[in-house]
């Protein structure tokens, strides 16, 4: 992907707005998928999801598990692959307004992540709490686990990973260095999956009951706390947005150009 150095008025105007149409479109799509999943769970969890050894369980729930895992892997590869292939190879040449536009896109992606995170970590997580208080399970793949750990959490991971890869491939500050808070924000959700392995192993062997505040669940909490780093990420984003939205006079611009030229000369001299 290449960027033009001179931005047109239209492009400049677009750069000052968040991509609301795309955001609300994606939000409506995600809401429809999560709501449909929830309605399906409501209708079939207690009717066909109680006995793992019942053939109907395989029809109504294991098929959902296999399908969603396949879709998520393909979707993940497609999104990350697309972002990587179309990465900006001229990041040092982008205009300030283009950079600002990308920051607004990044923030809208993070807002999408926030919406998905809320649905997954509150509604989907506590549906699991309610379920396991009324059923003694005979499998790791209960209907609520299939919804939470194999649908909700991967989508949650994918949403934050999308934002991370977008920033790494399109925003100069995030491309040159790694934002530690952003990396933590991605690592926390990703590490839920290995912790899930420990959780299921423990439930299989030594802790069948579902006391939700049990120590076996505390690993999830630690990973959830990775979100505390969101404060640092916001500081990084807002600091740059403030720099990009300073109102400068033509004299300031001239001064900046002189500084840029001086910096470039200094770099050349250093290289020589």
């Amino acid at each position: 992907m290449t960027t033009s150095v001179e931005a047109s008025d239209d492009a400049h105007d677009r750069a000052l707005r968040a991509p609301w149409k795309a955001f609300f479109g994606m939000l409506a799509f995600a809401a429809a998928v999560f709501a449909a999943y929830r309605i399906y769970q409501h209708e079939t969890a207690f009717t066909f999801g109680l006995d793992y050894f019942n053939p109907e369980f395989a029809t109504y729930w294991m098929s959902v598990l296999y399908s969603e895992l396949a879709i998520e892997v393909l979707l993940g590869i497609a999104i990350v692959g697309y972002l990587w292939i179309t990465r900006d190879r001229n990041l040092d040449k982008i205009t300030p307004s283009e950079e600002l536009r990308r920051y607004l896109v990044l923030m809208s992606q993070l807002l999408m992540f926030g919406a998905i995170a809320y649905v997954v970590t509150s509604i989907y997580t506590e549906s699991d709490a309610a379920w396991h208080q009324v059923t003694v399970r005979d499998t790791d793949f209960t209907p609520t686990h299939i919804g939470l750990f194999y649908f909700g959490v991967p989508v949650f991971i994918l949403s934050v990973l999308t934002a991370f890869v977008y920033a790494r491939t399109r925003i100069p500050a995030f491309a040159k260095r790694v934002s530690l808070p952003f990396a933590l924000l991605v690592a926390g959700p990703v590490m839920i999956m290995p912790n899930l392995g420990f959780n299921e192993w423990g439930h299989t062997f030594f802790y069948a009951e579902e006391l939700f505040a049990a120590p076996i669940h505390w690993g999830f909490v630690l990973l959830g706390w990775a979100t505390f780093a969101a404060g640092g990420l916001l500081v990084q984003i807002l600091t740059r947005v403030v720099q990009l939205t300073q109102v400068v006079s033509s004299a300031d611009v001239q001064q900046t150009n002189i500084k840029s030229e001086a910096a470039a000369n200094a770099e050349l001299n250093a290289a020589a």
Partner: protein
Amino acid sequence: MSQELTVSAVRSTAEQHRVHVQVDLLAIPLVVLLFAAVFSFQFALLVGDWDYWIDWRDRRWWPLVTPLALTILPAVFSYFLWERLRLPLAATLTILALTAAAWVSRYLNFHLFANFPMNMVWPSAYIGLGLIVDCILLLTGSFFWTGLLGGFAFAVLLYPMNWPLLAPFQVPLELHGTMLTVSDLMGFEYVRTAIPEYVRIIEQSTLRTFGEAVTPLTAVFAGFLNIMNFWFWTWIGYLGSKALWIRKIV
């Protein structure tokens, strides 16, 4: 660095204002959603059943476990919102987000999905605790005093703030010659898989046989613990709001 020398993306103060409004429209809902998400998640996994069920809101563990877990987000984000934005809102806002998320979840999951009566699974009232912490931070401007006074009050006042809601469920009744509370009876009518574990936890030690001092004793003990708890999580908030850059991950 050449990036920092880049000229502005806006041409006037009106455009600057437009961009800042856009940023607000993105950042504020993001922060609120993350508060709801993280708080619900950690509260479910650290307090969980103590807040889910009316018969678990006992006098021994509920007033201890709850404030210690409930203080975490207010303390962490107090640092960020107060130090970076001078907003003494973190405790109220985080607890409000938790409460809103809890009501949605109790209704959808515990009532509609698992068929428990709402009377048995309503979320406790914690918003007043957040207001106290934020007021102390606003008045003192100090995390030391907020931890000392607010952290202590946070734990001590948890039980009294919920007492008007809890009292009807603590009324004694007699069933087949045994005295128990209304909430105990509800618990026995709706047996859950964690009840054996709960009975093992709650029947330990002699505290259960003590008289009326158990709740205030637990509350004061929780208050002292919560002072250090608040300070510790404020420090985590300080670490979390650092805008650190690294060259590479490995």
